[in-house]
């Protein structure tokens, strides 16, 4: 390989945040005219790497070479000046302004001291035609689809003379046709010698478009691979840090220890052909009474989307839900709660806890919401409930009157679980309940899940850690690319099997 072909060479770069080493001596190399996938699960360090590269974060150590010369950026603006542009999942354009203006805003051509609109519009037409787009550049950008908006953003990047294009999950909200439209442009840019860094969660897309893949895990560089020589199962095992062959054996024993129960075959919740356009492909799913159904899949595979549909946060476009054999309509969380559903969201801070209220208040809120405004829970009863759950879940706090924001992540999670347990639910949805919490608290929560299901609670359990899903679940639905592929139960519930299903091109079709 020719040295001059290297656009960006990241060597030995580290970045620490208080308490976390987000990047631990990471290497990365982007060449001219290639599409380079950057893969990794949560906490792998992908977004930190991009932020260091684009100057949003300063690096703590190591070296970044750009076209062979060391360079350091102090802001994303400087990155654009060097020809490094980034596209995000959220289109970063000004919706109210025209396509043409979006391409040139901040650098509008001027004539006699005033903005030259004629030139902006003609230049934009030329620029947009380079990408084989035929749209009216004087229309507001918001009148076009997200895919076209992404292409407009790319045009803007190219007009700033991009040498490097970073695509940070740009396809997350695109449909198939739109993705292929985007990829057509990406291939063309590649031919023109632009280096493209592509971050995505869609395995199929990585194999469709990339030439090389770099895998990160827990802030460490795992390896750089040529896409054509890397099998899907290898890629997944690199991302998860597990060898499918070795892993299954030792796993099994551990799993057996906490999963020693038989389940009823009495269906509690049956979901048929539920779908939401742009979010989840139609799926079926059944949870029996006293059963833990695990959802396994990579990040962005549709786990959270499934949970949101079941809890009525997002509305389905089609399909039906049966509860105890009767069809129900869940149109809002309130609706779901009336049916004794409960949902611990993945995003603790934004969607779960209310930081400025006390632990006691956070715990009793959902119960109070269901009993209504006027049937107030007495102070005494509130304290009893709070103390009971602080005890039961061993929430570490000096008192129930502490602000929730003063607790650690794990204890905050327990407060949310306590909130829902206090409502005496029949169906509990847990979305990543153990994310970002320490090992001890994690084990406690896992034990709790199994304990609750033994008492007859139906549970939907979502986690990115496959062993955890296997440990806690009675059966597992495997997801990929917003689709439920298959259901595994009993002996089949092994990390290796799950990985194979995810890697299997034909699965779920």
């Amino acid at each position: 390989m020719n040295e001059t072909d290297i656009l960006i060479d990241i060597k030995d770069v580290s970045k620490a945040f208080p308490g976390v080493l987000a990047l631990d001596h990471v290497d990365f190399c982007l060449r001219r005219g290639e599409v380079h996938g950057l893969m990794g699960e949560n906490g792998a360090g992908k977004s930190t790497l991009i932020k260091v590269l684009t100057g949003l974060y300063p690096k703590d150590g190591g070296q970044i070479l750009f076209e062979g010369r060391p360079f350091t950026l102090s802001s994303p603006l400087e990155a654009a000046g060097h020809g490094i542009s980034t596209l995000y999942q959220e289109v970063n354009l000004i919706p109210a302004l025209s396509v043409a203006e979006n391409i040139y805003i901040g650098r509008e051509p001027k004539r006699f001291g005033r903005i030259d609109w004629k030139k902006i519009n003609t230049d934009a037409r030329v620029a947009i035609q380079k990408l084989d787009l035929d749209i009216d550049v004087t229309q507001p950008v918001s009148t076009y689809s997200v895919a076209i908006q992404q292409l407009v953003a790319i045009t803007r990047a190219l007009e700033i003379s991009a040498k490097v294009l970073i695509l940070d999950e740009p396809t997350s909200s695109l449909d198939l046709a739109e993705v292929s439209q985007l990829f057509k442009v990406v291939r063309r840019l590649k031919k023109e010698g632009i280096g493209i860094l592509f971050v995505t969660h869609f395995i199929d897309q990585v194999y469709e478009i990339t030439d090389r893949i770099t895998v990160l895990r827990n802030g460490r560089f795992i390896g750089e691979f040529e896409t054509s020589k890397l099998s899907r199962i290898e890629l997944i095992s690199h991302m998860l840090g597990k060898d499918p062959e070795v892993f299954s054996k030792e796993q099994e024993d551990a799993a057996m220890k906490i999963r020693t129960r038989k389940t009823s075959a009495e269906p509690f919740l049956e979901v048929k052909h539920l779908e939401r356009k742009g979010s989840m492909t139609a799926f079926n799913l059944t949870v029996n009474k006293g059963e833990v159904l695990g959802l396994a899949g990579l990040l962005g595979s549709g786990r959270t989307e499934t949970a949101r549909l079941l809890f009525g946060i997002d509305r389905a476009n089609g399909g039906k839900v049966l509860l105890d054999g009767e069809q129900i309509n869940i149109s809002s969380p309130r609706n779901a709660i009336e049916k004794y559903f409960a949902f611990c969201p993945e995003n603790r801070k934004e969607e779960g806890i209310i930081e400025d209220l006390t632990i006691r208040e956070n715990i009793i809120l959902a119960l109070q919401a269901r009993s209504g405004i006027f049937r107030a829970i007495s102070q005494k009863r509130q304290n009893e409930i709070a103390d009971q759950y602080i005890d039961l879940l061993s929430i570490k706090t000096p008192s129930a009157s502490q602000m929730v924001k003063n607790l650690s992540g794990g204890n905050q999670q327990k407060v949310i679980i306590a909130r829902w347990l206090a409502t005496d639910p029949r169906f509990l949805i847990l979305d990543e309940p153990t994310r970002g919490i320490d090992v001890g608290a994690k084990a406690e929560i896992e034990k709790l899940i199994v304990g609750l299901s033994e008492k007859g609670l139906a549970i939907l359990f979502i986690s990115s850690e496959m062993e955890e899903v296997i440990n806690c679940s009675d059966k597992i639905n495997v997801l990929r690319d917003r689709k439920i592929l298959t259901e595994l139960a009993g002996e089949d519930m092994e990390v290796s099997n799950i990985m194979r299903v995810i890697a299997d091109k034909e699965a779920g079709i």
Partner: protein
Amino acid sequence: MKLQLNKKNIPILATIGVFLLIYLIGSVMYTNFFSLRVFTNLFIDNAFIGVIAIGMTFVIITGGIDLSVGSVVAFVGVLAAKLMHVYGVHPVFAFGICLVLGALFGMTMGGLIHFFELPPFLVTLVGMFLARGLAFLVSLNAIPIKHPAVDAVIDFGIPLGFRTWLPATAMIFMAVTIMGIYVQKYTRFGRNAYAIGSNEQSAILMGLPVGRTKILVYSLNGLLSALAGVVYSLYTSSGYPLACVGLELDVIAAVVIGGTLLSGGSGYVIGTLIGVLILGLIQTFITFQGTLSSWWTKIVIGILLFIFILLQRYLSVAGERK
């Protein structure tokens, strides 16, 4: 200006429609309603509202709000009057000082909003208190403005024929409008204001000078409020600390009726001009009608404001559904 028929332009088309409708009804119902004199008076009587409304258009386009404008007008009025009347300062300097103070006042509010991320309504509410209090501090009573130079400006005017003439105040309003249109359309500052109001996060990531633009927008509005104060004192020949109570509401109403979206990102200075003229027309209409009392003006403005806000709301909800 080319107007395309898309969602973005519906509010301003509605504005033009309302203007023509009121004008038509007035012209059919009353003789003399459709005359050069009445039309010119719209510009004269609403000059000070118009000048601020242009500034407010920029503020609202960035997604902000400024409640301090009415108080600033009163403050500038009494300060200028006192400087001239009591301290014998020449009007040019007196008004000059006022304009500088107005701009600084706006800049401070913009700084507080940008640097400390305080909500604009809170900061400008405080500004409203402060300017009103300062006005009282300057003088508790009305002070007449009498100066040969001022009288000369007041008496100056361009004859338009039909026994109608265009005074300096109306010319200031028109000049500010033209400059507003130019700044909005042909300068980066004008375009950046749209960008911030439409999507601030994107504007930051696209490398636009968000902080500078925001502070500049409030400074501009402070400056124009002070200019409106000057126009108002020329119009009334006095400074009065209780003047223009509630003016901010008329101004915001004019901007919104003029088709600017309250959520920011969309609107035209030209629309605001028509919005101001609509407020003036309502006033004129009620004067011509004769039996309707003046408080009907407030109610009608309130109803119009409500209808336009509903229209905006409907359009944005329809946009989200798309």
